[in-house]
């Protein structure tokens, strides 16, 4: 989230001519800005969810409280992520509206998966229950990951001229994806 806020400030400064380039105007197009925001949101979401699920890694030390905390953290990170994606709006391309719709489909699917995670967290009891809850949460996160992949693939398919893909390749925040 911090990265997104910082990015917004950088972009705002660039837009009013405060960047290092004294040429007068920023060269970042709306599509470039969308790509920056998209990767930054993904990096933050993935990192936060990984931290949240890390809390559940050691079965021996798990408690009802640790499940509740992980469930809260997963919800907060995902709500924030879908909020950021929605706030980006449609990318400024000819398929922008279809891209916005792909994001919306993911956000709706993620909401259902969050409900499954909350049910799993609420039903934890005993040692056997812990293993079952971890499996249920893993299944819900797998489903969320699948919806996310569908969204990413949809954006790629919608973009035959690779306008958005090219902006993603150039976006600094996409370097933080690693690999």
């Amino acid at each position, binding site marked *: 989230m911090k990265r997104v806020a910082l990015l917004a400030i950088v972009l705002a400064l660039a837009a009013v001519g405060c960047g290092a380039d004294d040429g007068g105007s920023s060269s970042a197009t709306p599509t470039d800005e969308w790509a920056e925001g998209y*990767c930054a949101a*993904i*990096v933050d*979401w*993935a990192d936060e*969810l*990984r931290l949240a*699920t*890390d809390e*559940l*890694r*050691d*079965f021996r030390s798990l408690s009802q409280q640790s499940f509740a905390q992980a469930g809260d953290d997963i919800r907060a990170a995902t709500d924030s992520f879908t909020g950021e994606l929605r706030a980006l709006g449609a990318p400024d391309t000819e398929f922008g509206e279809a891209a916005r719709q792909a994001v919306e489909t993911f956000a709706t699917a993620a909401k259902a998966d969050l409900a499954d995670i909350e049910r799993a967290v609420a039903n934890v009891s005993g040692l056997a229950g812990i*293993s079952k809850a*971890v*499996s249920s*949460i*893993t299944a819900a*996160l*797998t489903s969320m*990951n699948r919806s*996310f*992949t569908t969204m*990413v*693939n949809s954006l*790629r398919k919608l973009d035959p001229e690779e306008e958005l*893909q090219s902006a*993603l*390749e150039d976006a600094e925040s*996409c370097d933080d*994806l*690693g*690999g």
Partner: protein
Amino acid sequence: MSGPRLIAVLGYSSRDGGAELNRVSAARLARANEEALPGDTILFSGWRRPRRAVSEAELMSRGWNGNAGNVLLDNASRTTYGNVLAAANVARELSAREIVLVTSGWHARRASRLLEAAHGDRVVLAATDERGTVGARIRERACWLLVPLQAALAQRRR
């Protein structure tokens, strides 16, 4: 463990292409070729996508012309987690002395973390050095959200 080395080659599932080996899997196959020695067992792992005639494992095995005495196929695994569980199972059955994990550089960290959870520390990494596309790296980053839980579940299966 005094059994053979197991070379586990993970297939890359691409929506593009059809009956041909995709570019990423071909690079992994070439990397496996560099690693394999006579006496090794090689495992090609990867499912058959809907409407495809053959699995990724089968496609890789058709392109294989390297060393390794014994070639095995896992046609069922659709995810990295599935790939590494299959590799760990085969390694146990063979009493393999080590697993050489062959995959792409951008995928190697997650795959090796999961394989170590499923099998222990007798894992050697042999990664290709290509950079993933931005789409592959985005998907890879999101897949990390599952790793802590998948690693915990894999460890419990040992």
